[in-house]
């Protein structure tokens, strides 16, 4: 019965999501598309940040590495991003492994600040090797055509990112019940106990960070293909790192749906607020965004997903 309900609900949502572009305008498509992309990035973050409990604030670096890898492959070597995105994932994943190694030694906020430094370093290196990366000038994608993942309208990007977001949810659902996923959650809850039952804490964290960075790198490719233009100082900005984490925490970290819920709330909120107030009182939209973020984090520590689920279950499952 319950399963049936869930299934019906998922199928209905899926149909709505897929059919939406037929009914709404290009701008809404574009905003939803960005929400899905951020949802995917937040879900990628969730692997290490939510399930792994390692609060990374350096994910913009993986985003940038992914974006740069596939873009350089496309512009200089004429390799389609459909292939390049896997290379992007691998490069970002490699960097993620490094961060994972660091996470062995750093805990909690230390790890967070360490990842900030890591992102800063990545930005500086992207700026420094200007012969390869274009330095501060960035790279403009001048190619075109669907074979290069470049479209003239927003609708293909919409379906691309929708697919990505759904794939992200399916992956997380599988992940949280996989042996490795359970191991990672165990490590988050209690490292000593996890070690006691024979989980290799070190390896688990490194692999978790690698998976997370791999997925973020793929997201980076999509971002670059959508924007057609990448630059280190904009891409590796702290704003992006914090936004990825904020979306997931607001939606509900450590759950398959948190990323999507958070992105569907925060991304349209910030873009619509900006459209509404940007021309009148610039900055007001950002204040409201900040207030919403603050209220959400304080009042709903489990994220919106946790709040809704708590309500549905009548508060039976109080505490941890």
């Amino acid at each position, binding site marked *: 019965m319950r399963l049936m309900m869930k299934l019906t609900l998922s199928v209905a949502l899926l149909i709505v999501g897929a059919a939406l572009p037929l009914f709404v305008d290009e701008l809404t498509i574009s905003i939803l598309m960005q929400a899905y992309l951020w949802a995917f990035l937040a879900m990628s973050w969730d692997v290490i940040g939510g399930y792994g*409990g390692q*609060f990374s*604030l350096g994910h913009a670096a993986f985003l940038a590495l992914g974006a740069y890898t596939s873009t350089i492959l496309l512009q200089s070597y004429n390799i389609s991003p459909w292939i390049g995105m896997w290379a992007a994932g691998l490069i970002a994943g490699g960097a993620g492994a490094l961060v994972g*190694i*660091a996470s062995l*030694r*750093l*805990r*909690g*906020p*230390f790890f*967070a*600040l*360490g990842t*900030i*430094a*890591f992102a*800063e*370093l990545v930005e*500086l*290196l992207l*700026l*420094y*090797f200007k*012969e390869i990366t274009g330095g501060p000038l960035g790279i403009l994608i001048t190619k075109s055509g669907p074979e290069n993942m470049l479209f003239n309208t927003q609708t293909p990007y919409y379906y691309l990112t929708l697919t990505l977001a759904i794939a992200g949810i399916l992956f997380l659902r599988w992940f949280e019940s996989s042996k490795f996923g359970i191991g990672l959650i165990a490590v988050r809850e209690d490292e*000593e106990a996890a070690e006691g039952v024979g989980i290799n804490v070190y390896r688990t964290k490194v692999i978790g960070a690698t998976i997370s960075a791999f997925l973020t790198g793929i997201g980076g490719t999509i971002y670059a293909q959508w924007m057609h233009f990448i630059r280190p100082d904009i891409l590796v900005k702290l704003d992006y790192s*914090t936004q990825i*984490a*904020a979306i997931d*925490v607001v939606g509900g*970290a450590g759950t398959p749906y948190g990323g999507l819920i958070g992105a569907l709330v925060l991304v349209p909120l910030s873009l619509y607020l900006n459209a509404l107030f940007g021309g009148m*009182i*610039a*900055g*007001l939209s*950002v*204040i409201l*965004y*900040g*207030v919403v*973020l*603050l209220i959400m*984090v*304080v009042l709903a*520590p489990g994220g919106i997903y946790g709040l809704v689920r708590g309500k549905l279950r009548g508060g039976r499952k109080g505490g*941890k």
Partner: protein
Amino acid sequence: MYFQLHRRRRGDFTSLINFFPLLRIRIGKVTGGSPLIELGAYTQLLVSYTILGGVYGLTALGLSLIWGVMKAVNWAHGDFLMLGMYVAFWTVTLLGIDPYIAAIVSFILLGLLGMMTHIIAIEPVVEKPGGHEATLLTTLGISVILESLALILWSPSPRSYYNSYKNTFLEVLGVRTSVAEAIAFMISIISIVAVDQFLRRVRIGKAIRAVSQNPIGARVVGIDVPRIRLMTFGLGVALAGMAGVLVSTFYPNIRPLAGSVWDIASYVVVIFAGLGTIYGVIFAGILIGILEGLGTIIFSNAFRQILVYAVFLMILLLRPQGLFGKALRRV
């Protein structure tokens, strides 16, 4: 040989040669832009960057305190610095008082604001599971609110106030610096000593230390831990406000985003220094200043931060408790 390297560097494609300092210096000689400079300039830069490092230490002090006591990251730290700069601007231009008196005004005002922030953004989340990370996000919210409020209230136009300190210069043995920077450096050291003494000798200070070392034990012996946290956060923000005033005496442009120049450096200083150390902050600040100086002397301005972050990450991996911190307990 030199010319070959030179041409490759200017061409479309280059190898990793930029990373090897020796090669780079040779290239520098060929282009006439040698990064090597005469001896007098070395001393000058060493002094300049030591002073800068001292200021880094001061900007990081408040952050370090908050971090050490409640393991919370104050993401809005740079914005409190910015508010301090505006306090300096308004008090100096409206009341016509000396910027160093404005530092005291800023200390008090920002202290109150800090306590308010603590009640809104820190206390409700800090004790919950995952609370340390949640403080990152709540203070992020505070940060964007403060930045945008400043933008709306005071417009983006950069402000500055007249002060003779920044335009008066000292010269000792051919090494020059401005009075404002020298004073900022001295106040930086004085305030670090003062905070350390406060933590050792004053009752509240001792309680703060107790909470930072063992919150549960502190509660057992009857310390009101939430109140101590409130005081700590207020003090941390007050110190940031004071640092903002001092920075504004020699650094141009008081504007809504002015804090972002200094906050990343503060975070780096705090981790460099490590937990539970006040003197570590000033040493770490000066160390980073000197590292930046070395980076610019040996390499180039573009490279100096790469050097800082690379060393930083190395230290983080080799000594996660920071250079001067005590070893972390496994919680």
